[in-house]
């Protein structure tokens, strides 16, 4: 509640001309945002994710939400491989929806969000969307109480989204030299999974921006924060 009030008052006092350019300005990081307050994603809101690791972000979000997951995409063949998804989320919960155009992707996502039958709606978008489309999805998410996650290309997205994330994979040991000994234990035997991502929060409507290096704990089925990368 406190953040909500804060946010509203801030919104009111801010001049209209600078309302939408927060992503261009480097925000002064005075206090670090806690990861747990930003992820798992806030329910009944529309979020956006871009970058190489966007699909993993979507898969992890799907694994952490409850109920069915509607995955809307424009592709004839599924982009996500259920065998790979298995590590993060039960593929049986997925409802894969093939649309023939971006318009239908957006319309299907809106229908699915408004019905409230699913826990998460993932929409893979091929191109940029405007403020109108983003706002409609946001309203539908609020009406149905369903979380929306739009997988967008770099630089696309709308200002109506609650948060926007950029996810990139990281080499197994950051800062290490390139002549690491090659590991020959395949498949890995209960060893810690070396998968690391850099998750940057590049837009946040209700808080500051931040960046974390995270990993996936397959055994506990949860995200572990390796380091608070800070600003």
């Amino acid at each position: 509640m406190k953040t909500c009030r804060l946010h509203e008052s801030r919104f009111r006092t801010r001049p209209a001309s600078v309302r939408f350019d927060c992503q261009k300005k480097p925000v002064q990081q005075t206090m670090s945002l806690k990861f747990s307050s930003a992820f798992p994603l806030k329910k009944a809101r529309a979020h956006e994710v871009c970058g190489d690791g966007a699909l993993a972000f979507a898969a992890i979000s799907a694994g952490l939400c409850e109920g069915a997951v509607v995955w809307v995409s424009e592709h004839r063949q599924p982009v996500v491989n259920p065998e790979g998804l298995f590590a993060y989320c039960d593929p049986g919960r997925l409802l894969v929806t093939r649309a023939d155009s971006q318009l239908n992707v957006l319309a299907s996502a809106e229908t699915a969000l408004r019905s409230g039958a699913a826990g998460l709606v993932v929409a893979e978008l091929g191109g940029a969307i405007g403020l109108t489309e983003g706002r409609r999805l946001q309203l539908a998410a609020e009406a149905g109480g369903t979380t929306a996650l739009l997988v967008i290309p770099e630089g696309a997205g709308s200002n109506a989204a609650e948060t926007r994330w950029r996810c990139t994979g990281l080499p197994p040991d950051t800062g290490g030299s390139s002549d690491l000994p090659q590991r020959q234990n395949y498949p890995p035997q209960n060893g810690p999974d070396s998968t690391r991502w850099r998750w940057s929060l590049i837009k946040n409507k209700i808080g500051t921006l931040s960046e974390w290096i995270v990993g996936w704990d397959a055994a506990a089925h949860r995200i572990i924060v390796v380091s608070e990368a800070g600003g």
Partner: protein
Amino acid sequence: MQRRIVSLWFPRLAAERSLRARPVDAPFALSLFDRNSERIHDLCPRAESFGLQRGMTLVHARSFCPGLLTRAADPDADQRFLRILARWATRYCPWVGLDGRDGLFLDITGSAHLLGGEEPLLGDIRARLARAGLSARLGLAGTPGAAWALSHFCEGIAPPGENLSRIGSLPLSALRLADQTCTSLERLGIATVSDLHNLPRATVARRYDPDVLRRLDQALGAVGEQISPLQDAPGFAARLTLPDPIGLLDDVMAGARRLIGHMCTQLDAAQKGARMLRLTFRRVDQENRSVELRLARPMRDPDRIAALFERGVGAVDAGYGIDMIRLEAVEIEALGMRQLDRAQNREKDSLDDLVTQLGNRLGLENILRFQPVDSHIPERSFTLVPAAGSRPAPAWPSRRPRPLRLFAPEPVIASGAGGHQGMEPPSRFRWRGRFLTTIGAEGPERITPAWWENDDGWRGGLRDYWRVETGEGRRLWLFHTPQAPRAPGWFVQGEFA
């Protein structure tokens, strides 16, 4: 007009139905468990030539014919097949009734000339059934009784008014009498139909049960006999005609709701659910506009159906107004009573409604679910099935780590050391226009192609898969084809998260 009836008898319906599905080249019989032992239910002529007959125990039959092939009989399926044949027979006349468990009656009064007369009609029936692998015996007469006698005993046509002369010489069992009655009449020296006809009626009526004379009269046409055509499948439709045209969405939906409520009551009484519905609006200018609704699951809940119709009805152009609304259930399925449940059903129902809504926009075949497939080939280890009418996979089998993104193999250009013999991945390679450095690799996992499947993608022979971690942060799934007919090479097939 004189009635003309065709009696169609399938003497080996059960055996021929089974042989149509799976032909065999051997003496063949169907067995059914009856009176404490497996007995022959029906058999083919080849088995009959060994001296087998219906009702014989299977053990006995095998001693006559050791090479006898048998299958279990399915009398219910035979009856369903006979109903299919009855529906087929409506191509000759509209009035077709069942006759016992292995025959049909066709009332061809007034329709024989459509095929050029009675002889060509029987020839056509015989030819078509022979092509379908069914042997049939046909009789045509003025009454069902006489036609039955002809089809079962001598085949042929009795011209109008000549029933007695054609069936007079047939034995008494041609009159559909009980065996016991026939035997006792034969003991008195009454062997044929004409013998019975020549007896004084009063003495027969006094000594035998009334069935004897009734069957005789039915055969000769003195007493009428009904042929009951098969009942049509129940149709579900409702119509609302309005005195004045309407055009507002709320009004139209109110009318549609009334029809939906009415139809759902009918469906409820018949224990059916609609799978596809069509709502047709007739406008005052006599144009018709229809809205179709395909449901993910059979349903008969009026409120939910009405809510699903709203989007389609909103798109209809009402023109100058609508004065008739018609609702029709185009596809129906059986839907039994269901136990009410507080949470689970509501959640499932809302998901089914969502599938319906999405399906009406994109087509139900585009709303899919993953199902696991038992295959070691990565791209074949899952399949997509339509979500409508399928259950989610109960438990996904846990397999080896696989990439989150899988694509068609893309060749890479190895530029660094290593990767020569396929013993380890190249230390530097170029993929999608970018140079990547290998800093870690796990493998190999060898996957051999499925030789029983003709897959062009696996022409290169077996593959050694490696998980490669690059200095640029991408984790790729590379494979090497040591057996490739041309130069062995490295390919990227997927990307881990």
